[in-house]
């Protein structure tokens, strides 16, 4: 211990190896945290938008209120809601047409928090009979600033209350003829923009127009006696085990579809009942793979830190031959001598990885501020929601990953110290300490 502290004090060059370990560890921690954060936000945004589980039959279905009632009576479901969706064109005014997705939802007035609504309002919207009332994503009515990627909320607020024309279309559910054009009907409706929604998720903000499900049913199937839904979004009770919940929900669905819809067993079985995380799993797997590849590349480059530690320790062993010889001549075993250098390597790894973790934590937590400064100083906007899906860079440190990286850094430091330790062990006091 005495020698470790002494070498650390006397051999300032050791700080270089600590710096190298810290730098490599910090870089790997930042990369791993940003990727993990991105994946978490990606998964979480789907859960927030669609609930924990989505039930989607191969076609539209009626009597969905009964299904929701049955689901909410089960022990696993906290809440269920029906949705209907379609694609459409939105004419917002002079020459301004957008391609949009229309989501008919059951709980439009309460679906978004006060923070997500640009009006800052949380009250139900007032409706009149003249036109349908809808919420639109902020990206539907405005473009973010080219440089800052931020929206001008004052301008956006002016869109609230404006009228737009929405065109969509559907074929009546009971007529599925061979000719695709015969029964398909275009539907056009005037929509009042009741509020603008800013979720921070690019796709939702850019593409979606929200109507109440009843209004969308009227638009798509004006003569229909019964309301139809395309999907049921389900929120599970806290602590519910997913597989058990999926099995129970499927049971409820199969009974409901057979009793109330009188669907063929084939259609009932082909209904997709999946968690929203499972829906995203292909993309998540791809993101994780890319994270792995990037960490591997930086990990290999970080191997040079091992070489650096080796060089520095080799130099210490070479210049401290007399110390080693004296220690050995006092009776220290080879193991004790090796332990001095390996222990010193552990010290370097510990201090370096601790510094790396602190640095990684600081950089990750302040990544949005750093990105902002890069934009101000260099005029380079690195993060754009149109490219990376979200308005803000996820800035949560992945501590599990960070601990693995720190442990790897300590092992790397020990590996770097190993050969110098062996050289130290092979030092012969009689050669080093002889008079000449």
């Amino acid at each position: 211990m005495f020698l470790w502290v002494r070498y650390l004090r006397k051999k300032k060059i050791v700080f270089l190896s600590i710096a190298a370990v810290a730098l490599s560890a910090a870089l790997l921690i930042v990369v791993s945290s940003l990727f993990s954060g991105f994946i978490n936000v990606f998964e979480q945004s789907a859960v927030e938008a669609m609930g924990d589980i989505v039930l989607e039959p191969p076609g539209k279905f009626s009597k969905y209120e009964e299904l929701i009632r049955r689901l909410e009576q089960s022990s696993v479901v906290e809440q269920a809601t029906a949705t209907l969706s379609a694609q459409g064109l939105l004419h917002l005014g002079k020459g301004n047409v957008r391609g949009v997705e229309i989501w008919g939802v059951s709980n439009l007035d309460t679906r978004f928090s006060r923070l997500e609504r640009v009006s800052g309002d949380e009250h139900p919207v007032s409706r009149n009979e003249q036109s349908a009332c809808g919420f639109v994503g902020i990206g539907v009515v405005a473009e973010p600033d080219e440089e800052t990627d931020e929206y001008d909320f004052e301008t956006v607020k002016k869109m609230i209350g404006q009228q737009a024309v929405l065109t969509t279309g559907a074929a009546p559910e009971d007529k599925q003829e061979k000719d695709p054009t015969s029964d398909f009907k275009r539907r056009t409706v005037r929509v009042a923009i009741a509020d603008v929604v800013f979720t921070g998720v690019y796709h939702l903000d850019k593409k979606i127009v929200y109507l109440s499900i009843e209004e969308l049913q009227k638009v798509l199937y004006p003569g229909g006696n019964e309301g139809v839904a395309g999907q049921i979004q389900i929120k599970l009770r806290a602590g519910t085990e997913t597989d058990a919940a999926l099995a129970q929900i499927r049971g409820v669905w199969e009974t409901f579809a057979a009793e109330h819809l009188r669907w063929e067993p084939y259609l009932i079985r082909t209904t997709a009942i999946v968690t929203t995380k499972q829906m995203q799993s292909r993309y998540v797997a791809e993101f994780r793979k890319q994270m792995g590849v990037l960490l591997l590349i930086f990990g290999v480059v970080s191997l040079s830190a091992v070489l650096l530690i080796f060089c520095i320790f080799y130099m210490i062993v070479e210049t401290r031959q007399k110390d080693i010889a004296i220690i050995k001549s006092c009776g220290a075993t080879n193991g004790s001598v090796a332990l001095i250098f390996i222990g010193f390597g552990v010290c370097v790894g510990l201090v370096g990885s601790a510094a790396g973790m602190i640095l990684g934590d600081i950089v990750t937590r302040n990544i949005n501020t750093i990105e902002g400064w890069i934009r101000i100083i260099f005029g380079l906007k690195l993060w754009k929601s149109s490219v990376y899906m979200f308005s803000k860079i996820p800035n949560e440190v992945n501590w599990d990953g960070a601990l693995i990286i720190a442990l790897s850094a300590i092992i790397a430091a020990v590996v770097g110290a190993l050969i110098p330790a062996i050289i130290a062990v092979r030092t012969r006091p009689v050669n080093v300490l002889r008079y000449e």
Partner: protein
Amino acid sequence: MYKIILSVRYLLKRRISYLAFLAVALCVFIVVVVMTVITGLVRDFKVKNHKWVGDCVVGTESLVGFPYYEDFITKLEESDIIDSVSAVVKSYALVKNRGLQESLGVEIMGIDPVKHSKVTGFGKTLYHRRGDVSEAFKPAYDPNLVGCVVGIDKWLMRDTNGRYSYEVSPSEAALLVSCFPLTSKGALAKAGTGLVNTKTFYYSDTSHSGLAAVDSSFIYLPFEEAQLLCGMAGPVKRISAIHIKFKPDVKLEKGCGKVSTLWKRFIEEKGEEQAELLDTVTVQSWKEYRRAFIAAMEKEQTLLTIMFAFVGVTTVFIVFVVFYMIVSHKSKDVGILKSIGVSRLDIIELFSCFAFLIGLLGSAAGVLAGRLFLLKINKIEDLLFEHFEFQLWDRTMYAISDIPNAVDSKVLVVIIVTAIAACLAGAFLPSWQAAKLEVVETLQVSQL
């Protein structure tokens, strides 16, 4: 001469310098591989964008479009820098396809296939009508029907190798296309009636531009039909853009500048006639036109370069330590050299020469290993996929075929120069220390 001899001697005799060599080679290897792949992806992406757009675009983002395009096209064709031009109509539409009970939102592009193929690479993106672009909108199963060309990702699936399962001949399919016709004031042209124009087109071919955003969202229609659908075929016809190809010897900036001047003169000639529509028109090179997409890729390249620069600092540290050790062991050499009249600058030059050698040889080894790896990178990926189902990019998700492995000589030069500069930077302080050594101290008996 002695500087080179001593540098080579240090390099060969001091085994610790092998470590510096190894560190440089390792970093250069990784950087060459990663930058080649990233640069290749960015380059391919740019080429595909260039082929899709042509050299220059005179156009407006407003879906109302702009009038008098025929007059301006005549002026362009009179210019000695223009090879060919193509008028284009763009808008959003809803498309109803067989097998689906709902519409899909798409972007439509109305073109004259022959003219557009002269300006862009459109003709080569086709599959069934590649040999005869003029027939692009004539379905093979019934040439009398009005055809449409569909972005390939809207029509066909990619397999795990990124290949599409093309049909022998196009299958018969009707697509119901609807869009808002707009007046020249931007209002809905069919207010009071159905509000939208709808027409049935028949699938005739797919277009594979290699740009995921394009191939998954565009449908190409005959120019006149698109003009009718969008309400641009009134007494004063309108379009969204004119795509231009310059003659081969015309530089992009010069060509765009000249087109811009022509456009300004054209607006002045037209005076107040529909000035509000003509004022929305911009002249952009293909790079500016596709800036939003290209910039995103370039930023990723920049980010990766910055991260490698951080990691490269470790290499500078290694070179520093190695030189520090060599200098401390070779103080006698330095003393002798100085005693025979070698200056401080010469000592710095000696160690800089040594650092240069390490940088050069390390880079050479890294580049060689990198090139060998890149040569086999696609085979390695195939093997990994065969045995472990690992692909660098899932080809069913990404519009990437092979991993780019053509080394860019400019990038290579930058990497080598940076590696040598890093070695020189790492060696500078130890060299300076060596230069400062005093002969009387290094050559006194107690030190020998």
